């Protein structure tokens, strides 16, 4: 059972649920952020949106909610935890992933399909891609510029933690064109592009689907 975490202001929660239930066809349920027991979950997705209206900083308030302690437990148990867009922001703000997301250099919200290079093909989410593969996924964000200091960047490279990088055009000014990072173990991934919007050909492309499929495989392999 994969949980989809729902905060006040989450917008892409039902989109992720649909991708899991109807496209990849795996058991999934919505998890409201209050008073929830996550112990039955084999994995978790923190979806995109504007949790708490993006007030203070995108993801800052959600990151401090009690449920995030339970998410940290899941991650520590090596269960797969995926953060998409606002979910990525929340994972960074809560310390589950290094670095931070801040305002796009263009100062504008940008919604378009972009090319990504897969740089890590061993994590629990990216092992169905080939290293160096170029894929297409849509972005839609105003605070997607990834930043980390030089030491952190060294570490990320050393430990193969940069999962996806923008290829051809960097839409938001992210350092080293970083579009997604994972933790050292590879069971926590955060990315700005939306795989749930690129899991069906009808909506523009299927390159994002493999992230969910890999997540399901990972869970099956651990059982």
């Amino acid at each position, binding site marked *: 059972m994969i949980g989809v975490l729902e905060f006040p202001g989450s917008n892409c929660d039902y989109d992720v649920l649909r991708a899991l239930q109807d496209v990849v066809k795996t058991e999934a349920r919505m998890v409201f952020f209050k008073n929830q027991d996550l112990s039955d979950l084999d994995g978790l997705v923190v979806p995109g949106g504007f949790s708490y209206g993006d007030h*203070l*900083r995108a993801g*800052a*308030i959600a990151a*401090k909610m009690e449920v995030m302690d339970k998410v940290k437990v899941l991650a520590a148990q090596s269960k797969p935890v995926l953060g998409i867009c606002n979910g990525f922001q929340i994972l*960074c*703000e809560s310390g589950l992933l290094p*670095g*931070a997301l*801040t*305002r*796009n*250099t*263009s*100062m504008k919200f940008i919604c378009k399909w972009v090319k990504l290079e897969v740089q890590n093909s061993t994590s629990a989410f990216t092992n169905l891609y080939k290293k160096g593969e170029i894929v297409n996924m849509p972005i839609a964000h105003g605070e997607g510029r990834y*930043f*980390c*200091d030089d030491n952190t960047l060294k570490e990320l490279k050393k430990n193969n933690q940069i999962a996806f990088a923008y290829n051809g055009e960097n839409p938001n*000014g992210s350092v080293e064109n970083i579009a997604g990072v994972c933790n050292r173990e590879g069971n926590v991934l955060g990315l700005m592009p939306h795989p749930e919007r690129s899991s069906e050909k009808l909506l523009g492309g299927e390159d994002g689907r493999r992230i969910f499929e890999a997540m399901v495989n990972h869970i099956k392999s651990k059982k």
Partner: protein
Amino acid sequence: MDVEIVVKLKKGLLNPEAKTIEKSLNLLGYKNVSDFDTKKVFLMKIDAKSAEEAGKQADEMCRRILVNPVIQEYEITVK
């Protein structure tokens, strides 16, 4: 106690908002303006026994949620 917290982006981090505003000012004729920067100000009242205690609490709030140390730094003033 009246507490004021000023938050700004860490040095070395691009502040595109400040850059854009400075450019606009230059275009409007204020060509003698440079080093435009922006800060965020949080204001609140803290019910505490001393200024020191209020400052300590404010600092804790910053470290817990109000400030992201990866990209921001802050200054607290207790009045």
